[in-house]
């Protein structure tokens, strides 16, 4: 893989350097001497001129085709800006060679290719239904599904995949990631070890199990609580609706993280250091706090469904509450609830990571991404001169970010699909 990138880099480097040095001759030295904000203004104006010229040239060359003729200046500016952004990316990538930026771009390309191949696979293999699903899927959604599948696989088979145990303390501490002995790495620990000598790769893998697993259970619980109460409030209305809504208002008035912190401190004292019990309390506390948001949503969705004539028809038929809620209302609320599930899952996940970061979440020695970020956070200071070392805390943070982005991609796609179906 690295040789392929090396070859591409070398080839493109030559071309881009040539272009940039050619442009460099045109830029007067006065410009380079200006403060940043003046250079930024000049650059924006230059992009504007380029956009205007682009449109004019387009009009002349295409003999006034409607596309160029009716193009607004905003669109023309956007084209010029996109060209500039591409140039800036190439500059950062090939000239400045910022390592983090290079990694980000390379990862982006790898993921895009992986998502494309995954979608191609989905289109060719499977039942007619699943093929049709993949055919209308945007690349972002394919990427999201691929990442979620990988995470799920890793979380389920953590014990089999991880090279070492999550609590196992190895002989060597503070090994730099990369596996290259020349830069302080060790091929036996590709992502290095932490301060007390635990393998970071193994801890990341077990962290998936703990963090993602607990987040999933918590979200399900929050949805069960908030969803059923919300629909009940919407269907029955009256004093029950008032009572539940006011309780939820009161709970929502307290900032979620601070409230969770407070309750967790109490729960930790109550559990007297029993680790599994603390985790159990954490699940319950986050579920209750997050269920308030779910309650609000399902009540609002429920209220818009409950006024429909088909609900009135079912009521006049003499149907019971259970039939009304689960058979008539719930199928019509799937789309918004599912979308909210995706988002809520991310929030729960981030709350757990935050609580662990603050020290009241998942208790050591269990691996958890939030705790890992906290434990290794001081290494971020090495970013300027030893990028390899600074990567250590970013690995766990990146794992969190990647899953969040992936889930949101899938949620966006589902929302789009459900709204498209309604039209």
């Amino acid at each position, binding site marked *: 893989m690295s040789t392929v990138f090396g070859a591409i880099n070398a080839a493109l480097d030559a071309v881009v350097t040539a272009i940039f040095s050619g442009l460099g001759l045109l830029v007067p030295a006065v410009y380079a001497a200006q403060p940043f904000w003046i250079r930024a203004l000049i650059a924006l104006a230059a992009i504007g001129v380029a956009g205007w010229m682009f449109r004019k040239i387009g009009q002349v060359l295409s003999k006034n085709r409607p596309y160029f003729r009716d193009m607004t200046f905003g669109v023309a500016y956007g084209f010029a800006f996109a060209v500039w952004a591409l140039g800036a990316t190439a500059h950062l990538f090939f000239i400045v060679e910022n390592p983090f930026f290079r990694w980000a771009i390379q990862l982006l390309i790898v993921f895009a290719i992986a998502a494309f191949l995954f979608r191609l696979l989905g289109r060719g293999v499977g039942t007619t239904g699943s093929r049709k699903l993949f055919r209308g899927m945007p690349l972002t959604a394919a990427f999201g599904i691929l990442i979620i599948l990988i995470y799920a696989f890793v979380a389920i088979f953590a014990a089999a995949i991880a090279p070492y145990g999550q609590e196992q303390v190895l002989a060597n501490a503070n090994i730099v990631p990369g596996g290259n002995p020349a830069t302080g790495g060790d091929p036996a620990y590709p992502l290095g070890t932490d301060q007390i000598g635990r393998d970071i790769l193994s801890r990341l893998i077990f962290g998936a199990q703990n963090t993602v697993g607990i987040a999933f259970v918590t979200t399900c619980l929050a949805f069960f609580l908030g969803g059923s109460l919300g629909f009940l409030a919407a269907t029955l209305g009256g004093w029950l609706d008032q009572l539940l809504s006011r309780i939820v208002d009161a709970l929502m008035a307290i900032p979620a993280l601070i409230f969770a912190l407070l309750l967790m401190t109490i729960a930790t004292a109550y559990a007297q250091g029993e680790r599994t019990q603390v985790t159990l309390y954490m699940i319950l506390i986050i579920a209750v706090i997050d269920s308030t948001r779910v309650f609000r949503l399902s009540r609002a969705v429920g209220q818009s469904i409950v006024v429909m004539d*088909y609900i009135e*028809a079912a009521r006049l038929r*003499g149907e019971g509450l259970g039939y009304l809620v689960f058979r008539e209302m719930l199928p*019509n609320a799937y789309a918004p609830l599912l979308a909210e599930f995706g988002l809520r899952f991310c929030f729960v996940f981030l709350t757990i990571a935050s609580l662990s970061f603050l020290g009241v979440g998942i208790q050591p020695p269990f691996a958890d991404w939030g705790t890992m970020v906290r434990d290794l956070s001081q290494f971020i200071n090495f970013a300027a001169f030893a990028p390899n070392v600074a990567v250590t805390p970013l690995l766990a943070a990146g794992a969190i970010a990647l899953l969040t982005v992936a889930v949101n991609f899938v949620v966006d796609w589902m929302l789009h699909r459900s709204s498209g179906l309604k039209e």
Partner: protein
Amino acid sequence: MSQLLRIRDLKIEGRSDETWVPIINGVDLDLDRGQVLGLIGESGAGKSTIGLAAMGFVRDGIRISNGTVEFDGTDLVKASASQKRALLGKRIAYVAQSAAASFNPAHKLIDQHIEAPTQHNVQNRKDSIEDGIDLYRRLRLPDPDQIGFRYPHQVSGGQLQRAMTAMAMSCRPDLIIFDEPTTALDVTTQIEVLAAIRKIVDDFGTAAIYITHDLAVVAQMADKIKVLLKGNEVEEAETHQMLSHPKEEYTKSLWAVRGFERPAKPAVQTSATPVIRVDHVTAAYGDVKVLHDVSFDMHEGRTVAVVGESGSGKSTAARCITGLLPPLSGQILLDGARLAPSYKTRDKMQLRQVQMIYQMADTALNPRKTIGEIIGRPVQFYMGLSGTELRRRIEDLLAEIELEPSQFIDRLPSELSGGQKQRIGIARALAAEPKFIICDEVTSALDQLVAEGILKLLAKLQDELKLTYMFITHDLATVKAIADEVVVMKDGEVVEHGPKADMFTPPHHPYTDLLLSSVPEMDPDWLTNLLAERGVDNIGDAAVDKM
């Protein structure tokens, strides 16, 4: 007269499932200055699409694939955005179907009115406000000096529609496109708007394209009529010619719709127990009383039409009968036995006897359930059938409403047309095997041909199953077609009650008279004669005041 608009071989396509599907297949259209053209057809015929294309505009996901739209020598299909901008609003104006949805609720009427003249530099702000007030006066809006300074929600629907016509007139355009401007209005309000539109079009010699599905309305407005069917022109002729001698079969079938009329049944014996008796019912929403001491009977096998404008309490009466709105006083009797005021305390057999068919089939059928599930549920719930017995019953019901069972049983409501959905609504009511069915404006959302099919089906079912219908409607043509008895309601009270024959022969209550005379007739001179007869310009409001 010189030619103003000239459309040649217009083809329009719409995007559906990644391919372009033709919507309009080569329509020609000519319009002279000062001429009014009526465009009629069922929904989906492409009326509105042609109307918008006459302004060089198409909705999202639609494209003009061929043809020219020449307005006064400019081809609007090829014209640039700035060329069109100079014409639209100034020389071509548009009046939308729902004025309530088309006005911006955040701005006063006059501010929206003067936007076009000031934008196009026709008039300065002060002059255009004065001109706007003048137009409001010409359109007989009440209190023309002040009404423009109100917000859209402070003005009634009919007045809004007139204000919108005034707005379209603000630049004295050469062409106005009216897209079903009176479809959403009551008959009495409709007349005001029709009279106003006709007056102003005559006053300024404006050409107009009048889009509607109501033949009687178009007969009043248009100099010539063009009939459309599925994106094709069926025929075009001068109005009198078209009404008296339609050439094509399709046009004749449109004209014949209004001919359906079921013979009235013999009078009931007064001694018979009515299926439903509404006995001195008074009802209110919160503190607002909407029904005042309402009483009427409905006898077995008969159709009672309840008519009145919106807000007259027709639907509230139905809600009291079903038990959705427990009355403040009075009672509902089913076969002589008192029904509990709320549906919650009625037993299953009582609920079964009273069924309802809704106006909007879209919201009356659960979009996530198949037709089989929707119709099967009452059968399962009341009769306890399951398995093959249930399936056979569903198939029987579908056959009864004239839909092929094997084709429809597994489909979702979204895959059905409006008329088919309404039939499913009827089947769901029948599935409970009721005695009494409330039909709440069941045909008002449907095209005339489809509506007639529904009415015929209802009549057939009544004869077979001895059903009793309470038929809520504001359309007197429907009353004429299906009712045995008529209840006329106004402001929550019954103003007239009797057999259909009595209702349609004078003398009647002045309000009934107003309702009856407001129903447009196919005679092109009807509106002119009516205006002369009533002797007032502002017929709607003034006539009500005179009572």
